[in-house]
């Protein structure tokens, strides 16, 4: 196709205009989080890397950044997990299957899966961090033979607040992943482990510092403790990935809201190497 035949080119375009996507399925995960399965209106796969995000729009309400929680190895649809905390997310929770929302993306830099191939992978996810982590977890499980050992540690506050409970059950049974889950505050029905996510490191076998890539995704408070655990296993700083959260308005490196020192999280991130972050002040403080 020559460029002239493309009618889009004669239309004014804008990086801020979202494209429509249909909600195929919606499922309540907890009181706070809703799981969405979506498809772009033109049917094309989103083509994300694990760890990337999209800007989700409700016309008339606003826009907010949300991580992809599904892997590009499952291209028919893409999935989001959204916690309701404010204006846009509240309204998103009130939608129904068949409704249309706006999507911009995939945006930002996700995980470098090529670098991960052949390595042992350790993922540590806390709270809502399991959502972005899930895009990578699915990827690894779908391309399992390309990775070494796979360890997954997941910590939630209470059993009720654990996300993707169906996946949690499946991961427990799945021999392809060495999976451990814990909650800070167990209730009477909880049969699993309790304690903060770092206590799960006891469950891990000896890690090979040169062959392991570690991924940390969770609230800032968790980050410090987990990174210490990982460093204490002599895994180099260049082998630790983490994902940052910031206020984001544009998602394309303009509005300045996501800036951490000289880095725009929406562009260079949200996934970073710890070695890179360490030099950045304010990154996890």
């Amino acid at each position, binding site marked *: 196709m020559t460029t002239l035949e493309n009618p889009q080119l004669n239309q004014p375009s*804008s*990086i801020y205009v979202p494209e*429509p996507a249909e909600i195929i399925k919606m499922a309540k995960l907890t009181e706070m989080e809703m799981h969405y399965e979506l498809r772009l209106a033109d049917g094309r796969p989103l083509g994300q890397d694990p760890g990337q995000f999209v800007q989700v729009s409700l016309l008339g309400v606003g826009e907010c950044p949300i991580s992809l929680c599904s892997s590009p190895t499952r291209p028919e649809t893409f999935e989001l997990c959204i916690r309701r905390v404010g204006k846009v997310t509240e309204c998103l929770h009130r939608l129904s299957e068949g409704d249309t929302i706006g999507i911009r993306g995939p945006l930002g830099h996700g995980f470098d899966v090529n670098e991960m191939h052949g390595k042992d992978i350790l993922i540590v996810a806390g709270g809502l961090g399991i959502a972005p982590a899930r895009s990578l977890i699915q990827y690894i499980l779908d391309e399992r033979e390309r990775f070494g050992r796979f360890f997954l540690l997941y910590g939630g506050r209470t059993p009720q607040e654990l996300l993707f409970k169906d996946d949690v059950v499946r991961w427990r049974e799945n021999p392809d992943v060495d999976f451990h889950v814990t909650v800070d505050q167990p209730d009477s029905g909880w049969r699993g482990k309790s304690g903060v996510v770092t206590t799960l490191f006891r469950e891990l076998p000896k890690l090979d510092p040169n062959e392991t890539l570690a991924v940390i995704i969770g609230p800032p408070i968790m980050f410090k403790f987990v990174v210490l655990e990982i460093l204490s296993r002599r895994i180099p700083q260049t082998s630790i990935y983490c994902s940052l959260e*910031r206020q984001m308005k544009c998602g394309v490196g*303009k*509005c300045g809201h996501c*800036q951490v020192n000289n880095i725009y999280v929406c562009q260079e991130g949200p996934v970073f190497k710890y070695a890179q972050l360490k030099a950045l002040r304010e990154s996890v403080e």
Partner: protein
Amino acid sequence: MLDRIVEKNELLELVDELSRERTIIGPVPREEHYFYEAVKNVRELDLGFNYCVYSPKAFLFPPTETLFRFEAQDGSFGATPVLEDRPQAFVGVHPCDINAIRLLDRAFSRDHADEHYLSRRGATFIIGIDCPKACIEGVFCVDMKSNNAEEGFDIMCYPLEDDGKGQVVYGVMFGTKAGREWILYHQAGRAPSVKDERDFKQYQRQKEQAFPRSIPYDVDTLPDLLERSYDSLLWEATARRCYSCGSCNLSCPTCYCFDVYDELDMTLTSGERKREWDGCQLPGFALVAGDHNFRGKAASRLRHRIYRKGKWVREREGISGCVGCARCDRACTAKISSIEIYNQLAEEV
């Protein structure tokens, strides 16, 4: 090298003719100060202005603008981008503000190009007027190396002769093809003579003496200086006075941060997504859900602003984020002064 010699009156005649195809925006006196305004009559312009309270940034990147219009009726989804490309001309822009526009040009065109800024910018003709001396006490454009503009204008006018009564002879340099064609098509002025070139050299020599320096180091070392001053008490000590009002951001010719929001029409079925200037000195700028604020203290916000201007923007775009116009210093009720901060940094090492 000069391209042309044009007298002010002739330039204004050309601008008058230009006003048939372009909105003319230039310095207009309002009580004691000058402001960039769109004018109906070129006689309203005063090209001998000292400085304008704000830069012409707002005509390229307005305080609020519509990004797209949408229809949000049940099920349907339509969004039409709104791009503004009405021809306009900035008449009388000083080098500091031209350098600020160059920075905006880079920031908005890198990676994901921002069509909203770029379409306005593409429709803008810029006539620069050089400053033979510092326009007002307190500016430090010379220290920021931005009191000369190498590019970013269509033509630049150097006031080689000024009788102080309104008769001015400009040495004109072309910055773009459009600028060259505009002058040559109208056969305005005359070709520069050997004497004109000599006068221009003399003008530049005098200019070098006419900008007092205010910073005791070369600005190229500022990024390093900042690098070493992250934990200085200077930030906290200065920011104690800060009201976090954001006036410094508002007055800055290179600030381009913004917020995005939706506005519904009365019918609630259609509306606009808009953007609005935002400022990194405002307390909520780096707040995220869960009330976690990554720059919760005025000191960290002040440091962010100075680093952004003095180091990060410069490292990213290759152009200083501060052009030394001192508008932030003049805007600040708390008398927080960037020039004072740059000076205090020199004592840090």
